[in-house]
């Protein structure tokens, strides 16, 4: 597996990365390399140049401030999965990061590279959609903030411009009585999500006061399960109300359900309620134990 020829530039700053992107038309940003390098080796992509942003310090690390979690684009999946702060403030995201690939992938792959690649079967786009994440980038027009529902535009497509550098991702920290989860039907070969479900639930005295559910894996871009959300909000959280709400997910999937030789679209559509039920159940349990702890 040999990549086609390309030029390599290493950017020392975000500004320099932007300049290099402008200077070399068609150049691609290289962060952890765990999406881009396989594409090159399979010769599915042949950019004339790579701009390596992997060593730009200001793009690394995560911080919690004023109820917001700010995550630098170069933060690795392993850092997300093992961060005690993130586990406390945003457990669904930490859980999703722990499901990405294998240890080698998690040690090198970054959240920014992952979302910019926008693989429909990837874990982080789904959970970031449920969390209502805000994506900050710097481009020729200056700073830009894009919300999750706008950011993921389709299969392998985002709202980032050709010369934009994704810098930070911001999500709300967990509120009192809130619980989050991410469950995944894992493809046994690729380890990507056949179906991935993220759920964020708020419970007050056993009642669901808010719920956000997002699905990935079986759709070209993450979708909100608004029918399920509507059905569960205002209900007492019981196995029956959860199962009944989860059953409505087919209305949220749209016409473009993905299928492959491992799991057909029909099958994915039919078992999707099971996975929604499991994510909701887990999030509800966490929300209720959170509420009890408060």
């Amino acid at each position: 597996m040999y990549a086609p020829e390309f030029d390599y530039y290493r950017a020392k700053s975000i500004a320099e990365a932007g300049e290099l992107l402008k200077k070399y038309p068609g150049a691609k940003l290289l962060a952890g390399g765990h999406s881009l390098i396989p594409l090159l080796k399979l010769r599915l992509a042949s950019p004339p140049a790579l701009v390596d942003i992997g060593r730009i310090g200001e793009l690394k690390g995560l911080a919690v401030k004023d109820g917001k979690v700010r995550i630098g684009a170069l933060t690795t999946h392993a850092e997300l999965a093992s961060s005690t702060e993130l586990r406390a403030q945003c457990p669904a995201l930490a859980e999703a990061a722990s499901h990405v690939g294998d240890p080698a992938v998690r040690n090198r792959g970054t959240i920014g590279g992952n979302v910019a690649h926008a693989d429909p079967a990837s874990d982080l786009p789904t959970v970031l959609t449920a969390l209502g994440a805000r994506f900050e980038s710097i481009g020729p027009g200056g700073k830009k903030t894009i919300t999750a529902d706008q950011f993921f535009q389709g299969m392998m497509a985002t709202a980032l411009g050709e010369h934009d550098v994704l810098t930070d991702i911001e999500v709300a920290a967990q509120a009192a009585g809130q619980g989050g989860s991410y469950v995944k039907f894992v493809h046994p070969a690729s380890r990507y999500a056949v179906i991935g479900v993220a759920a964020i639930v708020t419970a007050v005295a056993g009642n669901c006061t808010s719920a956000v559910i997002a699905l990935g894996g079986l759709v070209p871009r993450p979708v909100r399960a608004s029918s399920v959300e509507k059905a569960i909000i205002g209900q007492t959280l019981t196995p029956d109300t959860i199962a009944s709400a989860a059953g409505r997910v087919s209305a949220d999937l749209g016409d473009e359900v993905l299928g492959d030789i491992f799991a057909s679209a029909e099958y994915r559509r039919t078992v999707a309620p099971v996975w929604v039920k499991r994510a909701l159940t887990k999030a509800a349990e966490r929300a209720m134990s959170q509420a009890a702890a408060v």
Partner: protein
Amino acid sequence: MATSIFGSGIRRREDPRLITGAATYTDDLSLPDMVHAAMLRSPHAHARITRIDTSRAKKAPGVVAVFAGAEIDALQAMPCAWLLPNSNLKVATYRCGACDVVRYVGDIVGVVVAETPYQAQDALELVDVDYEPLPVVTDPVSANKPGAPQLHPDVPNNEAFHWTVGGGDIDAAFKNAELVVKERIVQQRLIPNAMEPRAALAQWKGASGELTLWNTTQNPHILRFLCSVVTGVSEDKLRVIAPEVGGGFGSKIAAYPADFITVFCARKLNRPVKWTESRRENYQATTHGRDHVQEIELAAKKDGTILGLRATVWAGMGAYLSTAAPGIPTILHGLMLSGVYKLPALKEDVHGVYTNTTPVEAYRGAGRPEATFMIERMMDKLAAELKMDPAELRLKNMIPRFENGHSVVTGLSYDSGDYPAGLKKLLAHVKYQELRKEQADARKKGRYLGIGLATYVEICGLGPSQVAGAIGFQGGLWESAIVRFHPTGKVHVFIGASPHGQGEETTFAQIVASEIGVDVGDVKVFHGDTDVTPMGWGTYGSRTTAVGGAALVFATRKVKEKAKIIAAHLLEAAVEDIEYGDGKFAVKGSPDKAKTIQEIALMAHVAWNMPKDVEAGLEASMFYDPPNFTFPYGSHLAVVEVDTETGQVDLKRYVALDDCGPQINPVIVEGQVHGGVVQGVGQALWEEAVYDENGQLLTGSMVDYALPRADLLPNIEVLSTVTPSPHHPLGLKGIGEAGTIASTAAVYNAVLDAVAPLGVKTLQMPMTPERVWRAMQQAQGRA
């Protein structure tokens, strides 16, 4: 000796270099002036080549040469080395480079040689080839029908061979049957996935006309012979070296066109040429395994006594016959079809069929997993039909204990076995009745647990050379060993077999240490170099220890006999009065009058005081041809839970009981069982090479082809019984393939057992969530 080195679970001496990355594989080698080859492979499964233009590629940066079509036709056609008798075998011409027609995606059309592998890869895209597509057929049943696309002009219905095996009165068996159970089984095509892809490095020394080929092979001596036939370099001027080889599982038995094209390029260019396949290329062009469609009927009495088994098998062979391919779905399969049972009658028809797919070869177990699955599936089906416990049905039909030969309906004579004892020990270990109760209780709570059994006996230690000849194997099947002492009492062992991960550098040192009283650390084992080691037939079919190990025992014992003569001379005693024990050669009754083997080795080398007519030095060689095969056996049990909402299967428990005779190193045995079991579970649950209707491999990489992963498997419990082979000097039988042979059937039976209460009667492998879910839906009338 207080603690015997034989039977001790010492650590594998191979592991430090493998684990730390210090091992040297073929691709790690680099020679001065070396260039890199890349194979141009057909993107079509079946097409006529109408034009090849290499001119653009020849001008690309770094390109040294491009050869295609007639230019590589100087090489002889690929030989098939297993010429099945009485089968109307038709070996279709298998050119190293296709000149006129390509017959599978991956068939070689040409080769680019460049200064770097990157440049070679870039230039491949500049070779212009025009293809005229031809109709494609990929499954063996369709390909065998009249009117199917024809792969080779002289092979009607694509039938490479029609082989039959039988014994007993099969018609009477079915006439007297009180019931007959039938089943159609697809043993899907698998990709062996050795961790190291294949590679070759060829160095031509023009001045002397000598060639060295470093290659990822399981059998360097066979490769030397085949390379000589195909390339025309005579055997004495050809050296084949198998450096570290990272697994093979059968896929590195065959000789491959790419290896010989690499040799061809090295000769043409008079520069060392290296070729290493990519993983994608490995999936397309390194041999696959299995690919059977089986139709089976089992005749029985109502009390569970089995009377006869009749089967027709279509075995997909791929586009050409790989080196040993014809023997796999026949000799190594059909002859083992009666398994561990008293089966009075048998008839099997095997149709080997050419299809527009990658050639099929041995894959761990090679024919025996396919046979074991058939009989074990049918035993469970019969048990279900009779509402009998599957363990009870098996015990009822098992061949009772035998110690020295038992003839079965296929004509083989098994060496030794106590099949009921093994199964009973397994059942006791898992507390079988309690397990069944646990299963019943779980069902009441809506949980679907399944328990699956598989028993097996395999044919290993291939084998007597006389039999090899009779069954059309174009070679011998003996093994060789040289045991050479050095003056300080250190030992070098040279073997003809070629281990590539199995651990014989360790276990063979244990054999020598235990036979002759040297420290195991003083024995070094050499293998895998035709200029260094004696001729041997290679490592496959669990034969290295069963045959090569025996050769080593006898060579060591020859050394011991000579040592005894020298000891007698030095101790001024009669040879008959010298006895060996605990590393010493002592005069009977006078234990103080003794010489150690180290003292004898030194005296044999300085040769100051040798007995009359005894040569200096201390070494011996042995070429050992076994009188029979060995027949390891065992019983395995799997426990699964099926998630009825999604169809997902969770393998909760796996227990393997194997009898490979005495164990040289129980830790290595356990490792072999673990690896084997996992590969068999892979077939049951995850693995399948899928072609589309155009012959494109849809599972073309590890992203689509699901290999077993550690987190999807339970701890494997390993048990054993010990029944020595009567004809091996140490009683050893072999353990390399056992796990794979039993585990596919055990897991299949467990999954079906779990969902049988829902009305599911049959399942298709691999048992993916969707397939299990659909089977449940169908059984419940919801699909």
